[in-house]
């Protein structure tokens, strides 16, 4: 039965297997098959045609992180060594497959965790990150939340997140010099990213699917002191300055949001029967792909957080998130992402959880806040 062996753990696997049944690692070309822990630099010959017209003057190289020699992370439960049989060698906890739990740390100041949670049988969330080696220079955080009970939305969401990241790899355009033209140029780039993600999601739609895969979309881009963001659906971007007033930047496309706008309390709306019904999404049956886009100047130390509802279900208000960040007591993005994921799992882990973070420290503090720049959640369409 075993036609070949897994390069990670040595277990027998079928010749056409994409993942090892035993350890969950991808088989074959890891550059294409693996949810890599670091973003690959744009290779020569990359198709930049789907990117913005304002071509980059240079492409920020992204350094590769160093995965553990055997490619296995420490135990998600106790931090112990994980055996080739994918169970912890200390506490015996079953380790999630690479798709069920993966992390990206493209630079020390940017990291994310994408986790299955407890109740769901597979991880349909996805994440794709990019970061310059220099802290605060440039980071891209993309999160897609695949809609459960649709076909293959786990594969679709991951492909979508990566496709969007490719579009967002180059610096955002500056526009014609006015805030309006700048926002319009940025909106156009985010629209391209959403389109690329949507194409990837639709590409995973099985023929004749009654439940075509669909997903939410949220992306945040840090470029120095400017934070740009866009979303479709109810995955969110937050700016959470240290010791300051945190703010939810994205505005959900959800029934709950409509109810909030009609006057219902956030708690009531988000916990109501329609709390998780989204009004817009990516996929073959998407009603409208235009993202809500906005920009904000970040003038303090703090955290840029991009997450799926698996996290914000348990801490929707910015203050509640700030409290969890304080409780985690770390300034390491990966450690904080792990801690926030653990928090959501401890609360029940009812949904897939994705937490992507960029740590803003030092570089922008003292810069003048340009409040006029803030444009919360106005989409161009």
């Amino acid at each position, binding site marked *: 039965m075993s036609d070949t062996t897994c390069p990670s753990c040595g277990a027998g696997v079928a010749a056409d297997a994409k993942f090892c049944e035993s350890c969950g690692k991808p088989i074959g070309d890891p550059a294409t098959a693996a949810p890599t822990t670091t973003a690959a630099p744009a290779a020569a010959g990359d198709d930049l045609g789907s990117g913005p017209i304002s071509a980059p003057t240079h492409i920020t190289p992204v350094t590769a992180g160093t995965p553990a020699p055997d490619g296995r992370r420490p135990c998600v439960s*106790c931090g112990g060594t994980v*055996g080739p*049989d994918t*169970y*912890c*060698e*200390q*506490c*015996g*906890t*079953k380790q999630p497959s690479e798709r069920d739990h993966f992390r990206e740390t493209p630079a020390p100041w940017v990291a994310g965790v994408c986790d299955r949670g*407890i*109740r769901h049988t597979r991880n349909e969330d996805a994440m794709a990150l990019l970061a310059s080696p220099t802290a605060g220079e440039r980071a891209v955080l993309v999160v897609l939340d695949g809609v459960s009970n649709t076909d293959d939305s786990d594969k679709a969401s991951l492909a979508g997140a990566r496709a969007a990241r490719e579009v967002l790899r180059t610096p955002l355009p500056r526009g014609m010099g006015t805030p309006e033209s700048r926002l319009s140029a940025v909106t156009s780039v985010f629209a391209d990213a959403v389109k690329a993600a949507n194409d990837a999601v639709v590409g995973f739609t099985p023929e004749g699917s009654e439940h075509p895969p669909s997903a939410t979309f949220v992306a945040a881009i840090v470029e120095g002191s400017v934070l740009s963001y866009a979303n479709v659906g109810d995955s969110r971007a937050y700016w959470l300055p240290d010791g300051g007033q945190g703010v939810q930047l994205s505005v959900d496309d959800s029934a709950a949001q409509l109810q909030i706008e009609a006057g219902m309390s956030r708690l009531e709306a988000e916990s109501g029967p329609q709390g998780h019904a989204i009004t817009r999404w990516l996929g073959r049956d998407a009603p409208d792909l235009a993202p809500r886009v906005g920009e904000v100047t970040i003038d303090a130390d703090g955290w840029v957080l991009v997450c799926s509802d698996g996290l914000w279900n348990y801490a929707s208000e910015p203050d509640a998130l700030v409290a969890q960040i304080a409780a985690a007591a770390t300034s390491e993005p990966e450690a904080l992402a792990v801690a926030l994921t653990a928090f959501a799992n401890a609360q029940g882990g009812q949904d897939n959880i994705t937490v992507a973070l960029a740590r803003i420290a030092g570089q922008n503090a003292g810069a003048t806040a340009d409040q006029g720049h803030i444009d919360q959640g106005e989409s161009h369409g």
Partner: protein
Amino acid sequence: MAEFTAAVYQNEFLPDGGTDVNAIVTVTCAGAGTAGQTGGGSAGEIIIVDTSGSMGPETMAAAKQAAQAALAEIVDGTWFAVIAGSDRAMLAYPKVSSGPGMVQMDASTRSQASESIGAFVGSGGTAISTWLDLALTLFASVPQVTQRHAILLTDGENREDSNKLDAAIRNATGVFQCDCRGAGTDWQVGEIRRIAQALLGTVDIIPSPELMQAQFQEMMRTAMSRGVADAQLRVWTPQGAQVLFVRQVSPTVEDLTDRRTEVNPLTGAYPTGAWSDESRDYHVGVRVAAKAIGQEQLAARVQLALGEDIVTQGLVKATWSNDSELTAKIDQQVAHYTGQTELAAMIQEGLAAKAAGDEATATTKLGRAVQLAAETGNDEATSKLRKVVDVEDEKEGTVKLKRTVDKADEMALDTASTKTTRIKK
């Protein structure tokens, strides 16, 4: 090169708050080869024959023949020796008084040894500790022998302080394996079983002399087919877990729980002795801390180790579920061997009670044994039990002790009590 495989049979689903995990792990060895021929060191065989005065002429003649037949089974090149045992142990072959106490088998040493066996004369008492001690000394005199095995034949009760035998068993444990056979009915099953169990061997009764030769041939043939010199069963359990028990349950029931030696704080090693091409089943019970519904965790890694190399591993899992249809099932293998283990205990305890004159207890226990033997399909146990008790209702386990029982039948039931049957997988 021998190949080992492991298969696990268990119901991994535990109810909310459940902590105890049971599993049967079948370890199978293929391509074991021949003892001493696999490059890991030489094999050594010692034949120990009771030559006390109690051995009648017929038994002695049969014992000589049997020992000579066993010699014929020893593969050329194997180191060997022959001990004549009475109230002291004599090195019958090779005839040396210093230096290596074993020689390598070839045509000439085989015929010389055969001659020495032919000269056995019965006299004196029975002090089995001295036999084991001498075997230990002989093995120690040939360091290149790493796979050590003896076969021991006795016909009588050990006539010495039981502390001496205990000490000899202790010294020999882990050094050599020993298969034991009792001729006739004047020996003590409990005593000889103690030796065999500690020294990872078998015990059986040879009720009449004419059966002796075949038994010895078979014992030695089996020993020679054990090409894997020594192996350990290793059981890893997670931090905070407790190993409730580790038992070999097939081909015989042997409780290994107390024979644990620590490999590291989470892993214990249990002796298995040498392996031929065979399958053995182990029943492992582990207590783990309960986790939340939906969580999965590893309760044990059951491994076979040759030296420090893990050659195969079976994973025993625990998954907490609130689906009572999943959690209520008891794995068929686990149920089968739980029954077989109780069967062995019931037979031994029932016979012990009978010997002590406690007929009520003996009747209850042997009745339960009849019931278990039927339930688990152990036909050999059923037929042996029926020679000791009259069965009134097999399902209910109601029996009457037979008024007259052939002593050999009772001893055969006792020695065979640990033999188990398999169920079809």
